[in-house]
């Protein structure tokens, strides 16, 4: 294509010998600013390069002190055609804007077929702008600049997303627009993956290393071609894909967690762990285990002298065989040590009726210390083979493994005057895996008809072998003189648990796309998934009682004497209700049409999803619901309307209907009796169905700048919440229940703005939701007898914060090769745990975190980076919103609330080097 070069000369009345050349470099087709494009000025005689600069965050460049003369101006940028132009320079300031043409020609629908640098911020914004539906994207370039190393942490940077943290303070699950994790699903390259979680569908996002991603999309409005079981949204991890040219990326970094300077890392060896429990090793469910079958190595703790973190990643991609075979192999390994500390007031399971109903009472004040060692391995293979213009197949393989070794020490009550004080050590080694293999084909059957298919095998697995609980007790007695006296240490029962679960998915997808007329497409397709899930659970309790019935004095765990008393404890607990299998088949079909012209686009259609579920439980044959089958059909319409106010502005309106299926085990009426109430599943539980409305104004002023203002509303029918129900006379249980409808609405603002080397970006989401559930009240009647009653309480949905915000200050200098980012994330107060008792919900206080990252490039291929997280060491604090009359308890700083938990994670630092070509 020919292009236009606009030259404007502003000649001042005063003749000077040097001039300044300024301008913007943009994409010729879209007008986006190109960041980091190289601009060089050469004397037209070709002798010496006079000057060279790189464009800034807004695509601008400036060349100063250019002597008079005739020059060649050369502008180059990855995946764009290099442009050379002759320029005559006099004096003063010359404004020179340059538009570059893409070297590939199919950037129109980036999500599916783009070959540009899809990892860049520009491409990300472009995808958002061009997308058919409401979504937010973070590209790999942005991710590499973030302080985050796992996808779980990256998620919190996305507008409207807050995270639920794991015990090391890292994000694990996403709450999207106030919708709890159960209402969202996770995709890899658009394919849904199963979860290694033992009871639920949602995928722990801390498994995935961030550096394998090409980009992360959070889709907030579903189209008919997408699977329908999301109400909050879908997280789509697009893994790095095969490039058009040789690409090598490598990083190596090391780091340290500040917490470990004050609290030594106390680890354990997994060398004695067998992935199979003793009864499985013996191959018999009637095997009487021997104490020698159990390794005590997991309960022997050693301090790690230099708990340094190490991270490596490498990816290589190219296109060979006459550009027909493209591949990308990526690997990431992260080995980290984290520590954290928690103060915990353990609430007694049943409140007190005095002085007022549901007065919280506390059993313990605990100090919990965590030492977490994590090894995270990710392997990613993408290959595609292009037969011809019309036919392409691709194979994708994913392997993720997270080995998490957690040692938790709970120091018993420090306030005790009489009785036993127990210190508990827990060692949990958990291996979680996600495997995925997808074979996909793209075929242009005719000029107008395209076929696209996928055959997918996925397996998610979690194994927790030899979970060990060791507790040591000392006796505190009050002597006649009123002073507490502590006894020697005694060792209590030693407990082991083996648990694991598999979730296997086989799925096939077929999509047909027919171009009826230019700008008018119709697609139809279907999907079938077969899911097989099983859970294994077995536990053993080894007694430490000595012959004669005496308590055993503790010296060290390897010297302790263990036995099975009574002998029946030596048999496996394979009848535990945590052993179950569940199957699910989902069949879906959709039809959708898309019409667009210069001003507007409309996409609409309908999807039908048929769900068939079945389970087999450990309930006795005399019980109702030992096995079960559940079937339902959902018709899910959706309509997405986009009006282009201008080339840079959209208005979107969309409606979709989404569903959320109950967790696998929430349907099984197996009961888990507790001291105060029995928990059980509910086969009458209905899946949730939500009608969702979205409106959004989008402005893309240039390049990577944006302004998004949106509003949403969700009317959720049959959301799943826990509450009490009368199963039968005198049989009141705590179970998942549908409590009618809930309304969830809110507004979002996303912006980013750049001035030369400086940028500011942020987002803010307001969310409001309400649900009313039954709760228990324990008080007194008119006669002074205690009485339990059931009352309704209205509250926000669990996990929903009214306010979520992110703000980042970005510095990016192409000249010096320095990028830096200071990021602040705020999660407003929200309910962490819904209590079964009225007014005793656990509220997490509004919490901030500040992180910093920076990168300095040397040449074009090597850079050094640093990431620092949680700079201000902000704790996470959880309260019960009741008047505080406690005396002598730690961390109580308000009279209107009782602080029940305070987690401190400390800062962490990472320094690394990156190679890129």
């Amino acid at each position: 294509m020919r292009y236009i070069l606009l030259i404007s000369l502003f000649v001042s009345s005063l003749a000077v010998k040097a001039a300044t050349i300024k301008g913007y470099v943009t994409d010729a087709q879209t007008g986006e600013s190109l960041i980091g494009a190289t601009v060089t000025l050469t004397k037209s005689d070709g002798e010496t390069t006079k000057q060279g600069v790189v464009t800034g965050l807004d695509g601008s460049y400036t060349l100063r002190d250019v002597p008079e003369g005739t020059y060649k101006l050369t502008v180059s940028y990855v995946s764009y055609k290099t442009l050379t132009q002759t320029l005559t320079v006099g004096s003063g300031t010359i404004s020179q804007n340059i538009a570059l043409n893409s070297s590939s020609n199919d950037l129109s629908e980036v999500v599916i077929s783009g070959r540009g640098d899809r990892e860049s911020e520009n491409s990300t914004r472009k995808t958002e702008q061009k997308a058919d539906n409401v979504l937010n994207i973070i590209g790999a370039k942005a991710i590499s600049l973030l302080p985050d190393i796992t996808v779980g942490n990256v998620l919190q940077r996305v507008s409207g997303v807050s995270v639920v943290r794991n015990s090391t303070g890292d994000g694990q699950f996403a709450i999207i627009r106030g919708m709890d994790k159960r209402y969202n699903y996770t995709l890899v390259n658009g394919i849904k993956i199963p979860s290694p979680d033992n009871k639920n569908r949602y995928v722990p996002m801390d498994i995935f290393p961030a550096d394998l991603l090409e980009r992360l999309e959070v889709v907030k409005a579903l189209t008919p071609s997408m699977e329908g079981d999301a109400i909050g949204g879908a997280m789509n991890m697009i893994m790095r894909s095969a490039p058009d040219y040789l690409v090598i990326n490598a990083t190596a970094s090391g780091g340290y967690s500040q917490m470990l300077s004050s609290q030594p890392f106390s680890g354990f060896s997994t060398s004695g762990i067998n992935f199979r429990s003793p009864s499985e090793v013996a191959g018999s469910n009637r095997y009487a285990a021997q104490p020698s079958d159990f390794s005590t190595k997991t309960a022997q703790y050693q301090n790690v002298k230099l708990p340094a973190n190490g991270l490596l990643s490498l990816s290589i991609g190219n296109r060979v065989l006459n550009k027909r075979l493209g591949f990308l192999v990526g690997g990431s390994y992260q080995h980290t040590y984290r520590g954290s500390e928690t103060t915990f007031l353990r609430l007694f399971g049943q409140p007190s009726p005095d002085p007022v109903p549901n007065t919280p009472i506390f059993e313990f004040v605990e100090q919990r210390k965590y030492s977490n060692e994590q090894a995270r391995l990710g392997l990613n293979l993408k290959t595609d083979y292009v037969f011809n213009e019309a036919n392409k197949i691709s194979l994708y393989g994913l392997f993720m493994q997270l080995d998490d070794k957690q040692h938790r020490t709970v120091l018993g009550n420090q306030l005790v005057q009489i009785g036993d004080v127990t210190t508990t050590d827990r060692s949990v080694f958990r291996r979680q895996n996600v495997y995925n293999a997808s074979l996909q084909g793209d075929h242009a059957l005719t000029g107008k008809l395209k076929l696209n298919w996928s055959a997918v095998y996925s397996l998610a697995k979690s194994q927790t072998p030899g979970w060990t609980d060791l507790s040591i007790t000392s006796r505190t007695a009050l002597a006649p003189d009123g002073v507490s006296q502590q006894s020697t240490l005694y060792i209590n029962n030693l407990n082991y648990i083996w648990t694991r679960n598999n979730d296997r998915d086989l799925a096939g997808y077929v999509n047909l796309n027919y171009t009826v007329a230019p700008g008018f497409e119709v697609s139809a397709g279907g999907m079938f998934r077969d899911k097989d899930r099983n859970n294994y659970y077995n536990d053993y309790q080894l007694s430490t009682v000595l012959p004669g019935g005496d308590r055993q004095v503790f010296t060290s765990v390897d010297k302790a004497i263990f036995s099975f008393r009574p002998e029946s404890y030596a048999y496996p607990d394979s009848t535990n209700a945590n052993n179950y299998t569940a199957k699910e088949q989902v069949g879906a079909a959709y039809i959708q049409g898309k019409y667009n012209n210069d001003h507007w686009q409309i996409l609409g259609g309908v999807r039908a999803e048929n769900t068939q579920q079945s389970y087999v439980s450990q309930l006795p044959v005399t019980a109702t619901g030992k096995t079960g089958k559940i079937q339902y059909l959902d018709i899910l319409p959706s309509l997405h309307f986009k009006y282009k106010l201008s080339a840079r502005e959209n208005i979107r309106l969309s409606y979709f209907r989404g569903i959320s299926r109950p967790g696998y085990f929430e349907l099984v009426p197996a009961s888990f009796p507790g001291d105060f109430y029995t928990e059980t599943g509910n086969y009458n539980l209905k899946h949730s169905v939500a009608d969702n409305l979205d409106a959004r104004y989008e402005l893309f002023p240039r390049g990577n700048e944006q302004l998004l203002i949106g509003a949403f509303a969700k009317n959720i029918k049959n959301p799943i919440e826990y509450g009490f129900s009368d199963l039968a006379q005198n049989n009141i249980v705590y179970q998942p229940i549908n409590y009618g409808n809930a309304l969830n609405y809110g507004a979002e603002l996303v912006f980013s703005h750049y001035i030369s080397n400086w940028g500011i970006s942020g987002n803010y989401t307001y969310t409001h939701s309400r649900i009313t559930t039954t709760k228990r009240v324990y008080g007194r009647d008119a006669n002074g007898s205690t009485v339990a009653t059931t009352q309704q309480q209205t509250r926000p949905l669990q996990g929903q914060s009214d306010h979520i915000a992110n703000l980042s200050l970005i510095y990016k200098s192409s000249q010096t090769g320095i990028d830096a980012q200071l990021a602040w994330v705020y999660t407003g107060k929200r309910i962490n745990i819904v209590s079964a008792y009225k007014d005793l919900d656990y509220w997490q206080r509004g919490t901030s975190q500040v992180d910093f990252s920076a990168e300095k490039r040397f040449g074009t291929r090597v850079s050094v980076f640093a990431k620092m997280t949680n700079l201000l060491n902000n704790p996470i604090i959880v309260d019960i919103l009741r008047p505080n009359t406690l005396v002598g308890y730690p961390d109580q700083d308000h009279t209107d609330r009782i602080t029940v938990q305070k987690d401190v994670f400390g800062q962490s630092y990472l320094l690394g080097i990156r190679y890129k070509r």
Partner: protein
Amino acid sequence: MKNQIKYGILAAGLVAALSGCNSSSEDVVVSAPLFSVGQAVSTKTPLQGSIKGTLKSDSTYNVTGDVFINEGDTLLIQPGAKVLFDGKGAWYFVVKGSLLSLGTQAKPIYFTVPSSVAVKNETLGADPTTDPAYKGFWGGIAGETTFKNIIIKWTHLDFGGGKLGTSPVSFLANGANAYTLTSKNSDGIVVLEDSWVYGAVDDPCRPFGGKYNIMRNTFEKCGFTGGEAFNIKGGTVGNFAYNLIIGMATNGPKASNDGQSPTQPQTNILMYNNTMVANGWRRSSDGRGGSINYENGAKGGYYNNLIVDSKYGPRIVGATASYAGNSLVVADTSNIKYSNNYNYVDSLKMANQIYPVGFTTKPQTTDIPAPSTFLPTGYKPGQAYDGTAVVQKNNPLFVNFPLPYVATKKIADASFVGTFNFRLQPTSPALGKGTTGFTPLNVVPISERYGSTEITAPSTDIGAYPSNGKGNQH
């Protein structure tokens, strides 16, 4: 004492016979028909699955799996029947309807295991880690949420309370310890009378609500390293009286209002005229009691109990308790009444816990030993004190039990009745020291078959064996 009663009956019979000679009308005595329900259950096929009807007198039944008595059904067990569990699982009798185990003094019923599975070890000082009493060879009798009656009279419940596999009961967890007698229906009626409960891994009797009358029974060797004779949870009302309790791991009766649900009343239990010997000694963790305990919202009262060589005296958890190791929550202290309890101790350690340190039990002037003889002036409940003055004082003078206890090395060895006799000698200082100033809780009907034979009134004598002979008949 047994002989005295027999002679009394004989004398009355002679008088009646003589007076009968003087009458011209016939004095007719015929036998009543043996009470039965529905069809007789065959002894030929092992018991398992849903069963109703009658287990015949003097017959032996073998249990090879969980037994269910469905809603609306009744299973009657006639005197002298033996129900033998195979010991291959913690099999339960799950009662959704009614279970009537109506033994007699002459023909008691047995729920036990054949001698090939376990026999009682009645050697003093036997090692509890090898004693079959603490192994649990069957589950128990469980009243599901719908049951109407569980009436157990003159029945031996031996070697129950094992480890469950798949729980057949909605309110017990898979893999948990079974309880020999348990139920969860606040409208259900449970009567345990004149029976024997021997051995259990944990609590032999744990109600999760219901109307209970536990009277004139003998509890021996229950709880391996923890366990109460009668561990009461939320929503339970009734009496626990005239029981002999020896060798519990922890307490005799313990009342709590844990988990009171909207259809249930507050736990309210009267514990009176029990004799408790050598309890609390197998409890591995500290400070969990050794006689009577009230905690977490329970109310009621305790009177006329005779407590001998137990690890702790009666314990009421009050607001002052600063205690850990296990959840201890305040009892409904203002609604618990007590007096006239008798404590005998053989060591200073026990003497220092007659009023347990850290708890709110208030000494009563009617208690024996008199609080004024050993507590310091200005004593406040829960305060540590020196009990030297009462060690080995006020021997209650049992007919046959050595006090001070010097038979073998430790008091914990005295965990079964055997040849001991806990009736009181005529000179016992416990006689005439009790109170009758309270009324038992009449929550179950008085009935030969569907309720309690007799709700025995309190006695002026302390302990389970009052001199009027109306107490424990064992």
